[in-house]
């Protein structure tokens, strides 16, 4: 059963099927829009309507039934599309045919074959692919962190629905695949080179011929520049779209990875936190506000909107879609609001870094009875035991994989070795931190814990310092300075430069050591490796 409407065109009454009616009224709308700028546009439209009515009447007299969609399509073919009707005799003919080509490649959401909003079905029709592949791609993208969802929603908003019959015809009309794009580019290139050779021949002759010919040459050159410009513009737009899209996706993926905690640990500068997501980290260790959730959401929006807009506009340029002013305006408004709220709520967090404090502690090596100080890394509590085959005896600790507890904040201490001004080994530990006020900074220092052990001939250093569970990250730092007197030795384990932050000079020398520890002594204000005393050139200058 089909619904039939009764319409009046130019005084004639027709019974028309609903789908045919939609196609026809859209056709008239297009024509009206097309000629609206022209002088006498309304008259042109009413003349065309009159002719359509006449043609319809002829068709109906043959069959005596309601007008169906095929008949409307036939009439549209007879009458032509608006751009084929151009009145302006000066207008170049190429324009019309070119627009036909562009007009026929159109991406729509195919709601007839949709599962959600017809994005996959539409893309499938557009790329001549079975939509199932596109759906699988979307699903895979969802599993890699919601990128698929965001992309799908962006496409849902961007791609117009194939609402009318003519949309559907256009959607299925000329499908664009790589081959077609290639053909199109080749065609344009051939056309251009034709033009170019034509023009150059003409340019040669121009001097020998009369003025009208020269004029013609100039006009050709103008045309050539115009069409070249058009192609370059489209290519640039495509390229820009591609870059925008890739940038957007390139930003979105790491965002999602950090947001959903798919990284083993968050590491920045000399700090490491394992096993929690970025939002969790921010609210636990950074934000100084009573409403971390609000700050978190607005911050997320502030970051996410520009990223999505990049993807959005990338797709827009790639497929030559029209700008969606409303979507853009809403996005800007939301972003502004989120940005302002973020600023407001992060004020206290930002000022929490205002005051700085340093605390220096001195340690002496009492009862030092050896010429050599052994510097070792504390492996007991940070590294897994390496056991014998029967799991009974501990052989050593696995230096490569520290055991870091989930959600705990670890900082890497700095380590420097310097020349002592007397005959004693000395140790200085610098603690520093920030806070709202000096007291806060000092409190943060008090709560920073660094464990090390001194006995008569060894210094055992922890690879990390830790923050107390309730403590926020306020730029806490621990700096260890060891003072070595001249004529004395230090033995440094290879794991020390691996975990502690040392100057490049030391690190470079120490990392090439094959033995488990290397010996150093001071000569002429330089630390020299004891086993290579002769090679003074390789020594490390005293810092």
């Amino acid at each position, binding site marked *: 059963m089909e619904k039939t409407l009764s319409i009046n065109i*130019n*005084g*004639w009454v027709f019974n028309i099927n609903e789908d045919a009616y939609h196609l026809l009224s859209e056709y008239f709308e297009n*024509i009206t829009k097309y*000629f609206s700028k*022209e*002088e*006498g546009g309304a*008259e*042109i439209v009413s*003349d*065309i309507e*009159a*002719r359509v*009515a*006449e043609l319809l*009447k002829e068709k109906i007299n043959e069959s005596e039934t309601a007008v169906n969609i095929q008949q409307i399509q036939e009439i549209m*073919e*007879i*009458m*032509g*599309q*608006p751009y*084929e*009707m*151009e*009145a302006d*005799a000066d207008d170049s*003919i*190429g324009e*019309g*045919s070119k627009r036909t080509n562009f007009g026929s490649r159109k991406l729509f959401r195919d709601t007839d074959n949709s599962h959600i909003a017809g994005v996959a079905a539409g893309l499938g029709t557009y790329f001549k692919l079975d939509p199932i592949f596109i759906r699988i791609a979307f699903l895979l993208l969802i599993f890699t962190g919601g990128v698929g969802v965001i992309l799908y929603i962006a496409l849902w908003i961007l791609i117009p629905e194939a609402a009318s019959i003519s949309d559907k015809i256009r959607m299925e009309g000329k499908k664009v695949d790589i081959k077609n794009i290639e053909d199109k580019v080749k*065609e344009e290139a051939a*056309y251009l080179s*034709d033009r170019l050779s034509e023009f150059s021949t003409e340019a040669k002759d121009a001097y020998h011929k009369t003025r009208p010919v020269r004029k013609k040459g100039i006009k050709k050159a103008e045309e050539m520049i115009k069409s070249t410009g058009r192609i370059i513009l489209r290519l640039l737009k495509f390229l820009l779209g591609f870059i925008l899209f890739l940038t957007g996706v390139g930003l979105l993926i790491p965002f999602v990875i950090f947001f959903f905690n798919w990284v083993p640990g968050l590491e920045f500068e000399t700090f490491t936190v394992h096993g929690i997501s970025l939002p969790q980290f921010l609210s636990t260790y950074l934000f100084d506000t009573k409403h971390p959730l609000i700050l978190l959401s607005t911050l997320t929006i502030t970051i996410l909107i520009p990223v999505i807009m990049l993807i959005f506009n990338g797709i827009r340029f790639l497929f030559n879609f029209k700008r969606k002013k409303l979507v853009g305006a809403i996005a800007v408004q939301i972003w502004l609001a989120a940005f302002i709220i973020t600023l407001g709520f992060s004020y206290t967090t930002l000022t929490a870094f205002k005051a700085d404090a340093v605390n220096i502690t001195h340690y002496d090596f009492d009862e030092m009875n050896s010429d050599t100080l052994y510097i070792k890394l504390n492996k007991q509590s940070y590294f897994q035991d390496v056991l014998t085959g029967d799991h009974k005896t501990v052989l050593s600790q696995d230096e490569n994989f520290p055991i870091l507890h989930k959600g705990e904040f670890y900082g890497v201490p700095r380590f420097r070795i310097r020349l002592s001004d007397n005959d004693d080994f000395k140790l200085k530990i610098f603690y520093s931190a920030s806070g709202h006020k000096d007291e806060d900074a000092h409190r943060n220092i008090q709560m920073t814990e660094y464990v090390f052990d001194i006995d008569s001939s060894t210094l055992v250093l922890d690879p990390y310092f830790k923050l107390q569970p309730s403590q926020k990250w306020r730029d806490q730092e621990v700096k260890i300075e060891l003072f070595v007197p001249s004529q004395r030795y230090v033995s440094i384990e290879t794991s020390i430069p691996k975990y502690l932050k040392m100057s490049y000079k030391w690190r470079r020398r120490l990392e090439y050591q094959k033995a488990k520890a290397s010996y150093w002594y001071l000569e002429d204000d330089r630390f020299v490796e004891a086993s290579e005393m002769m090679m003074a050139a390789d020594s490390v200058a005293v810092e």
Partner: protein
Amino acid sequence: MQNNVMVFVPSNNRNMNIEKTKAQMRKGVLELCTLAIISEKDVYASDIIEELKSSDLIVVEGTLYPLLTRLKNDGLLQYRWEESTSGPPRKYYQLTKEGEDSLTALKQSWKELSIAVDKIIK
């Protein structure tokens, strides 16, 4: 006149450029032909279309309407409404004085052009 036009139109339509040139040629003579048809007797749009189509001068019918409106706005044409036995009233077009002059001028230049072209392409 039809024969003259046919001389212009090569049968090979594989090449896009030839198609373009053909369309351009048709467009160039469309105004002349339309004026000529109207000058014979008062006609309404569908009569003009019939005649132009039988000579392959237009591809889509829509082409004619913007042209008619432009000619009318330029003062070359005028029309009157006439009752029809089979439907709503129709616009019957006729040439104005200016239109007649314009047609004469166009005819003259067509003849010259046609002779010149025939001479070149032989």
